[in-house]
């Protein structure tokens, strides 16, 4: 229902009473501004935490081995522990339903040579699932697959920066490079959000590496992605169980962290999740407090305003205004002021957040602070509702005063 005359009345009333309109708007604008800033900054903190773990899959686990630090079953301290295909397959069979992705990893450092360009690179020998655990993004060609592994193919997937170093802008896919003396076919080029170091590496099949460099079945690490269906606690329990089982299998002391450990993203996530949850709870508490204070502020002003206008309402009623038209006018005015003021606060807050941008990332761990559209939508609903309530209750009361009483008011 759009009533141009109603709007004219409202703008006239706002315009003729600028100070009080600005005052009531200011309360709301300020409350929303504070709310936006608070929320934005906490979301910035949350972004920092998330991006710190963004490089790898959120459900990733890592089995790492080194030297024993405790004697066990007559075996000495300082014994070097070596993972092999046996453990890899044991994990695969034992926990099949708890695992989404699984890969072995062998670290090598070789020179890669193409024509006259030559450089030293970290090379990871892996299984195909590695792509999902490392969140590798394929730009050209493809990643390693099962038949590469079976055939122990001499194929290589190189990082964006490796390609840049060796090929510049020229085509690299399908070319052959010399890796530590052997010729490898480039089947893919990838990028990674983990930064430059993650893009200056290359991947080859784990089976190829085992055959060519040592002719054994050793592996450096086992990487897993636990089943996303598991909740955090179940995932943590799974990590502990696998750690115990592997230590037992490899004759390691049950508490020997140094010899074999399972690094579990679920534990880190749980900590961060609890921390962020607490932070958001505080922000919501403080933020709603600010909003409520703003709403109470505008309600107070509206009560005052309506008292001041009681006589005017009396005149209007004597001239034939229905109570509903008076309530409607006041409510519409109040909603208009709160909405406009609220959006001013919101825009100013968002603008300040954009100004802050990433400038606080280094010192305060606040990255790209912003408010989500849902928050904006929620704030709008709260604003309109508060304008409605702030206007409606006192206006309803004023409109029901008998005109004779209202006319007597000063």
């Amino acid at each position, binding site marked *: 229902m759009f009533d141009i005359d109603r709007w004219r*009345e409202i703008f006239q009333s706002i315009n*003729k009473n600028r100070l009080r309109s600005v005052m009531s708007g200011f309360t709301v604008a300020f409350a929303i501004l504070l709310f936006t800033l608070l929320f934005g900054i906490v979301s910035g903190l949350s972004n920092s935490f998330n991006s710190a773990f963004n490089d790898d899959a959120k459900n990733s686990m890592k089995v790492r081995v080194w030297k024993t630090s405790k004697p066990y079953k007559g075996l000495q301290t300082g014994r070097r522990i070596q993972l092999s295909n046996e453990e890899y397959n044991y994990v695969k069979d034992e926990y099949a339903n708890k695992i989404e992705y699984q890969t072995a990893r062998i670290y090598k450092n070789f020179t890669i040579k193409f024509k006259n360009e030559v450089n030293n690179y970290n090379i990871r020998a892996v299984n195909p699932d590695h792509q999902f655990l490392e969140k590798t993004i394929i730009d050209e060609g493809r990643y390693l697959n099962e038949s590469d592994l079976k055939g122990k193919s001499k194929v290589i997937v190189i990082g964006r920066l490796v390609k840049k170093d060796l090929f510049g802008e020229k085509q690299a896919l399908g070319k052959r490079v010399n890796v530590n003396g052997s010729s490898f076919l480039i089947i893919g080029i990838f990028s990674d959000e983990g930064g430059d170091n993650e893009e200056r590496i290359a991947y080859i099949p784990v089976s190829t590496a085992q055959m060519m460099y040592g002719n054994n079945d050793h592996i450096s690490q086992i990487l897993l992605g636990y089943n996303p269906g598991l909740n955090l606690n179940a995932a943590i329990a799974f990590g502990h169980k696998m750690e115990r089982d592997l230590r037992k299998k490899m004759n390691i002391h049950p508490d020997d962290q140094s010899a074999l450990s399972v690094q579990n993203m679920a534990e880190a996530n749980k900590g961060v999740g609890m921390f962020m949850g607490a932070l958001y709870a505080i922000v919501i508490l403080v933020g709603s407090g600010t909003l409520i204070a703003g709403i109470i502020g505008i309600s107070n002003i509206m009560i005052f305003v309506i008292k001041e206008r009681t006589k005017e309402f009396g005149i209007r009623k004597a001239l034939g205004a229905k109570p509903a038209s008076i309530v409607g006018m006041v409510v519409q005015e109040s909603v208009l002021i709160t909405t406009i003021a609220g959006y001013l606060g919101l825009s100013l807050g968002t603008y300040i957040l954009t100004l802050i941008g990433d400038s606080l990332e280094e010192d305060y761990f606040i990255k790209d602070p912003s408010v989500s559209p849902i928050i904006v939508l929620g704030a709008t609903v709260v604003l309109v509702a508060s304008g409605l309530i702030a206007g409606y209750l006192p206006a309803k009361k004023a409109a029901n005063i*008998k005109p004779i009483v209202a*006319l007597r008011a000063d």
Partner: protein
Amino acid sequence: MIKIEKLHKSYPIGKDALHVLKGINLHIKEGEFVSIMGSSGSGKSTLLNIVGLLDEHDEGDYFLNGQLIKNLNEKKAAILRNKFLGFVFQSFNLISYKTALENVALPLYYKGMKRKERLIVAMDYLDKVGLKDWANHLPNELSGGQKQRVAIARALVTKPKVVLADEPTGALDSTTSDAVMDLLKDINNEGMTVFVITHEEEIAAQTSRIVRLKDGVIISDELTKVAKAI
């Protein structure tokens, strides 16, 4: 036009009730120019408020334009006021942030008339009260007499059946009072019923019928020389 029978009204004051109108019988025909006289506290303003549907009576019957007024809610009362009644108040009661023209046009807004149309009509009525040149002035830029003329234009703009004037000259000096009374006479001559409340004999003498009220009862009801002259 207005028919009142055995009308009673009392106001509660603490535990007691103040009995203001004690059985008023009054019949005003269409086109009459009536004044209600009485000292303060005689109940004359209460009577006008009830006639003007600004207040409710306790007992008795009130017919406005043949319609029994009973159990009106605010909405119905607002419609009837807009349709049948025009008000002129002692303190003018203009809306301070609206110009003379907008004040006059306001009742037409509540009648549902379009803006263009109602501004034309309002200007017509301002012209009638001789204030066309002051149309865009705010009330505080007008003299008392001018304000009251704006108020009269506002009361007339909906072409009501009855104009109710509560001490219309109470806040004016004698010259401007006469001008306002002349205006009301003109209105009456055009056939509109005019109902004036006053405590000034000279004002009442200019109407055609004087009803005197004392302590909530009518003590006299007679035609004036003006009426007899016609």
